[in-house]
């Protein structure tokens, strides 16, 4: 009888702890609307060509299309190059937010190393945000973890 009560009590504690963990994790994770807002900030930096702000928002190793960039100096070069390009980054439609999955790497490259990047370096709560622009469309990899001060982890630029 005592054992039965003890087991029920343990089960209750485990359930309560799981619930608390779930609540805590949802607090630290951005939902789709919040992810869109974060993508909006990045998009605004792209439109204004603010290379320094983009460097500050970007985490390494960063995935730029087929390239993995482990060094901050490479990110600086990337954002300076992007900022001085004539690509029109102004969004021309609604953002689409997708959860990164086992196949997301194929959107960037068919290379094994990009597949490994998604397995080893992509944030565990990564979102893929697609932004249509008049020049084409952008694919951003964004960490949904709110604690991440450098949520931008990848970029693909597609021209029309």
């Amino acid at each position, binding site marked *: 009888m005592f054992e039965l009560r003890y087991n029920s009590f343990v089960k209750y504690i485990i359930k309560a702890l799981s619930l608390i963990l779930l609540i805590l994790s949802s607090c630290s994770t951005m939902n789709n609307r919040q992810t869109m807002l974060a993508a909006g900030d990045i998009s605004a930096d792209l439109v204004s060509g603010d290379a320094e702000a983009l*460097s500050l928002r970007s985490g*390494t*190793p960063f995935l*730029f*299309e*087929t*390239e*993995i*960039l*482990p*060094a*901050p*100096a*490479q990110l*600086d*070069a*990337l954002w300076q*190059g*992007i900022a*001085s*390009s*004539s*690509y029109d980054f102004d969004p021309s439609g609604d953002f689409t937010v997708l959860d990164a999955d086992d196949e997301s790497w194929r959107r960037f490259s068919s*290379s*094994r*190393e990009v597949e*490994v*990047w998604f*397995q*080893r*370096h992509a944030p565990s709560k990564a979102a893929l945000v697609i932004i249509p622009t008049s*020049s084409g469309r952008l694919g951003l990899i964004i960490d949904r973890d709110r604690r991440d001060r450098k949520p931008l982890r990848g970029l693909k*630029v597609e*021209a029309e």
Partner: protein
Amino acid sequence: MLKNCIIISVLFLSVFNTALWSESGVLSYLEGRVTLERSGSPQKPAEIGDTLVSGDTLYTDSKSFAEVELASGSTLSIKEGSVFNFGEIADNDSKSGKRGFFRVLLGNVSFKFKNLLREPEVGTPLAVLAVRGTDFTVYTAPDGASMTVVSDGLVEVSSGGQTVLLAADQGVEVAAGLGLGETFDARKGFVRYDAFVQQALERSDSDPVGSLNAIAEQFYEYAQDGKFFLDSWKTNYEEVQKTRSQIDLTREKKGDEAAAEIMQTIMKPLQLRSLDLNRTYRFNFISGLYLRRYVISSYYIRFRTKFLTDTGNPEWQKFLEAYKDVLDVYDNQLIPFLEDEDL
């Protein structure tokens, strides 16, 4: 099966190596944001007091600086915007069978060596420096070109089969396709890193495909040499297996003493050769990986962003063709021999 053999062998060799000798350093000072990447682990913010071991990489951003102190009392100053790898290479002349090999993959690093009984070597994407003196700086541009400037002592710079010995106040540049340049006057105030980088970028801008192809040649060489030494390692591994069986058989038939004789005269040299070949093929594959990561990627960033809205431009199309050839070699001749942790 082969991969398992390699892993077992590498584990054995790693333990064996560590017991013999291992180069290490301590992060003695830093300013700004410095990142440390330990082989196979995620990047993390570096802190004063962090110990650096073989395989570690330090990254400084545009406003940061780091200083590393080696066990010998030597110091390395890693300037802003740099990538520095702390490694080692095979060295048959050394008691431990290896020596320090520091790579300046991007940016600039100044070295002040003390107690030069066991000189390390310094590598850039295209050159190798043998340290014969104490005080020098290595600059590496995004296109892989390097400039070495000696303040005190002697440094031997080698690239593409050519070698030059630099004395104090002398410098030399190495660029892809151009090889080793002329020695120049490098007295204080005569050398400007920003001008060197600007010149390197202008050179690659004037001929993107030619510059990429020149880098690719070195890249292919690393892939081929890596494969050659890996094949030699496999052959050697088969010899080790055969000898192991021979030792067991001898022990059964002739006793422990006869088996110990084979162990000493045949097995031990084979194991040392295995160690040497293992380090050499890994060195080549990793050198190829670094060339891909820090130099070829810089070319891609530069030209991709330049032609972002003009993808039909023939100049971009030609570059893309050459770039795809490099990626093809990378995917088929390098990646299969790298561990996921390397990537």
